C-alpha cells in the first residue's frame, strides 16, 4: 500500500504535562497525573480519582492571550493550546501556504459551560454568550478561526474512539489528495456530565486505575487535548520537513453487540486491528508495541485482551496502556496516545503500564511495567467507544 502519511508536528496538554516534552518526561519518570478533583464541585470528589489538568480556565485563557470576554469552553481552551503547539512544532508560520484542514474530536464539547449555567442563563444575560459554545463543532470552529483555517473544518464524535477517527479521516483525505495538510486530534475536558454518567455505569475507580490487572477497579476519567499535523509527501518534500513518524494503518469497525458494552470475544476490536494491518500492508508479527485502549474497566480490558489474542495469538508484541498516567480522556484519548505512540517510535521506548500486578487469567496478557528500551518500527494503538465503535491506528517509523 506504499508509505503512510507523514506526521510533521505534535501538540498535547494532559494531566502529566502541558507540552509534548513535559508529557515525555512524566512518562519516563513514571509520574502519573491522577489526583483528587479540584476544579469541579461534585459530590463524588472523595470517591473518584481523575486525570485533571491543574490550570484554571482563566489561566488557560491568559496562556492563549484571549480577551477576558471570550466564551471558550474548557474543551476549546485545551484544544487551542495543543493545536498551537502542534503547528509550531511543524514549523508552520503560514497555515494557508497549502490547502490545510482541521479535524477535531470531542464528546463533551461545551458541556462544562452548559452544566454550570443551565438555569442561570435565563436570568443572567451576561452568561448567554456561552449558549453557542455548547455544540461539539464550536470548539473546532474557534480553533480554525484562531489559526486562520477557512477551508475544510470538521468534528467527529464517536465517544471514546473519536480522535482515532479524526486522525484516520485526515490521513485518508491526504491520501485521496483532498487536502495537502491537516491538523487532526481531539479534546475533552472533565465535566459533571461525564463524571456522573460513568458513575451511574459503576465503572469509576476510587483508586488509581490498574489497566489489564485481574483485580482492576474501573477507570479514572481524565481531560486532555492533543493534535498532530499530517502532511502530504509533496508538502514534506517542498519544505524539506522533518518527519516524526507516519500514520501507516487505520481502520474502524463496529462491534454491533451493545450500545455501551464490548462483546466478550472482542469482535469489533479484532476486525479493527486486522483491517488496520491490511491497510498498512503489515502482518501481526510486524507490530512491536501495542498502546492499548486499556481503560481498566472489567469489560474493556477483558474484551480487548481477547481481541489482542485473536489477532496476535501467542506471538504478542509488547503491550501497555498509558491510561494509568492520564486517566481516560474520552474523545481526546486516541490523540494523546497517538502522540505517545510517535514518542515511543522516536525514542525506541515502550512506556510502562502503571499499577499492574496480576494478569487476567483467561488471556494472560502481561503488559510492560517498566520503561523498556526496544527497537520499534511499528506501533499499534487501539481506541474503542460507546456505540460499538472500534478504531485502530498504526504508526510507523518509516
Amino acid at each position, binding site marked *: 500500500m506504499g508509505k503512510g502519511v507523514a506526521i510533521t508536528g505534535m501538540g498535547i496538554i494532559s494531566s502529566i504535562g502541558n507540552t509534548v516534552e513535559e508529557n515525555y518526561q512524566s512518562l519516563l519518570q513514571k509520574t502519573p497525573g491522577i489526583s483528587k478533583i479540584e476544579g469541579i464541585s461534585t459530590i463524588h470528589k472523595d470517591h473518584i480519582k481523575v486525570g485533571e489538568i491543574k490550570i484554571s480556565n482563566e489561566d488557560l485563557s491568559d496562556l492563549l492571550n484571549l480577551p477576558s470576554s471570550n466564551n471558550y469552553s474548557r474543551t476549546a481552551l485545551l484544544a487551542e493550546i495543543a493545536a498551537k503547539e502542534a503547528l509550531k512544532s511543524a514549523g508552520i508560520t503560514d497555515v494557508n501556504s497549502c490547502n490545510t484542514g482541521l479535524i477535531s474530536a470531542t464528546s463533551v464539547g461545551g458541556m462544562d459551560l452548559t452544566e454550570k449555567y443551565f438555569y442561570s442563563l435565563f436570568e443572567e444575560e451576561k452568561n448567554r454568550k456561552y449558549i453557542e459554545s455548547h455544540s461539539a463543532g464550536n470548539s473546532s470552529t474557534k480553533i480554525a478561526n484562531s489559526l486562520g483555517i477557512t477551508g475544510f473544518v470538521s468534528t467527529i464524535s464517536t465517544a471514546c474512539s473519536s480522535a482515532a477517527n479524526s486522525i484516520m479521516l485526515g490521513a485518508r483525505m491526504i491520501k*485521496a489528495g483532498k487536502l495537502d495538510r491537516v491538523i487532526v486530534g481531539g479534546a475533552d475536558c472533565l465535566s459533571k456530565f461525564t463524571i456522573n454518567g460513568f458513575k451511574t455505569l459503576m465503572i469509576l475507580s476510587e483508586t488509581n486505575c490498574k489497566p489489564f490487572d485481574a483485580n482492576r477497579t474501573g477507570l479514572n476519567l481524565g481531560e486532555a487535548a492533543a493534535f498532530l499535523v499530517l502532511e502530504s509527501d509533496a508538502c514534506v518534500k517542498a519544505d524539506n520537513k522533518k518527519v516524526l513518524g507516519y500514520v501507516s494503518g487505520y481502520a474502524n469497525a463496529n462491534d454491533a453487540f451493545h450500545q455501551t458494552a464490548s462483546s466478550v470475544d472482542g469482535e469489533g476490536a479484532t476486525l479493527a486491528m486486522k483491517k488496520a494491518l491490511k491497510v498498512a500492508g503489515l502482518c501481526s508479527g510486524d507490530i512491536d508495541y501495542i498502546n492499548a485502549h486499556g481503560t481498566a474497566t472489567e469489560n474493556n480490558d477483558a474484551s480487548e485482551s481477547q481481541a489482542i489474542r485473536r489477532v496476535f495469538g501467542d506471538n504478542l508484541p509488547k503491550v501497555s496502556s498509558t491510561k494509568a498516567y492520564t486517566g481516560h480522556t474520552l474523545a481526546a484519548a486516541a490523540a494523546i496516545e497517538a502522540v505517545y505512540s510517535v514518542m515511543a517510535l522516536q525514542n525506541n521506548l515502550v512506556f510502562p503500564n502503571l499499577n499492574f500486578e496480576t494478569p487476567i487469567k483467561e488471556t494472560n496478557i502481561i503488559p510492560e511495567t517498566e520503561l523498556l528500551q526496544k527497537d520499534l518500527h511499528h506501533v499499534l494503538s487501539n481506541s474503542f467507544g460507546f456505540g460499538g465503535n472500534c478504531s485502530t491506528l498504526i504508526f510507523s517509523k518509516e
Partner: protein
Amino acid sequence: MGNYYINGIGCVSAQDSSDNELGLQNFVALTENVAPLQKPDYKKYIKPTMIRRMSVGVKMGVVASSMALQEANVEVPEAIITGSGMGCLRDSEKFLKNIIDNEEQFLTPTAFIQSTHNTVGGQIALGLACKAYNVTYVHDATSFETSLIDGMMILDEGEQNVLVGGVDEIGNHTTELHKLIDRVKKEETLKNSLLNSKTKGSIYSEGSQFFVLEDKKKGNCYAQLLDVTIYNKLSKNEVTQKLEAFLMDNNLTISDIDVVVLGLNGEVDYDAYYTTLQNTLLVNTTQVYYKHFSGEYNTASAFGMWTACTLLKSQKVPGNIQLNDIQPTSIKNVVLYNQYRGENHSFVLLKSC
C-alpha cells in the same frame, strides 16, 4: 474519483415525507416557530417493544435509513456514516437536568448511555448487525456534508455501497436557550412567510434523511452525486467566486446548472449570503428553497438533498418551493448551497442518472 449513485432515499421530517414519489407536492409551510416532527409509521420499521425504548433521534434515524436501504435493495451496508450537529439532544438534556435537579443523586444510566452523539449510527448498526465502518460527524451545519465527503471516499477505497445520512432532534431546553439569543424566531413574526419575516432567527425543527450511495447505478437511481465541498468561513463576496470554482472543478459553468437549491431560512442578518447569489450569478437559474417545509436544524441540508433527489427523479419543480419564475426545460445538473450564520458553507453537486 469514481461514480456515486444515490439508489435509495428516506426522509422523516416535520412534513409527511414518507412517500418519495410524491416528494414535496403536498407539503404545507410550517407556521410554528418550533415545529415538531410528523411521526412516521414507526411500526413499519421498528419492533413494538423497541419503539418505546428508543429515543426520537434513534427512531427517526432507523426509519429514514430503513427506507433508503429498502429502496436500494441493500440489506447490510458496507459503511454507515451519520451527521448530527447536536447528537442525541433530548437524552443529553434529560441526564443533565437530572444531575442538576437532584444534585448528582438518584441517577440512572439510560439517558447517559443514549446521549452520545453516535448513538443513532451505533443503533442502526446494531439493528442491522453491521460490523462495518461507522462514524458520526458533529460539525454544526456541515455535519451531513462531511458525511457525504467521507462516503464518497469510502466508495473510492473499494466498498460498493455506503449508508449516509443526517439526524437532529429538537431539545426543549436548548430551544429555550436558543430563543434567548435570537436563533429561534419569536412567535408573532410567523404571521409572515418565512422569507419575508425580516426578523432574526429561524424556525426550528427536527428530522432525519438517509441516502444509499453505490458505485453502480440501479433501476431506481435518483441522482449521481458529483462533488461536495465545505468551507469553515466565507464572506458574501467569496461565495460567488467559490461556487464558480466548485463548478469549474467539475467542468461546469453556471449556465449548465438547471436548478439551485438554497438553504434560505429567513434569518434577516444572514439570508443575504443567498440573495447576493440569487441576484447575480443565479439570476437566470431556477431557484428553490426548502426550509419553510423542513425548518432549521443542523442537518436540515440533508432535507435539501432529499428535495434535490426528488426533483431529479420526477423532472418536475413543484411551485411551492420555487423562488423565481424560471422553469427548466429538463433537470440535469442541480447544485445545493447552504450555510448557517455565515459559517459552515457547503456546496453539493448532483446530476440526473
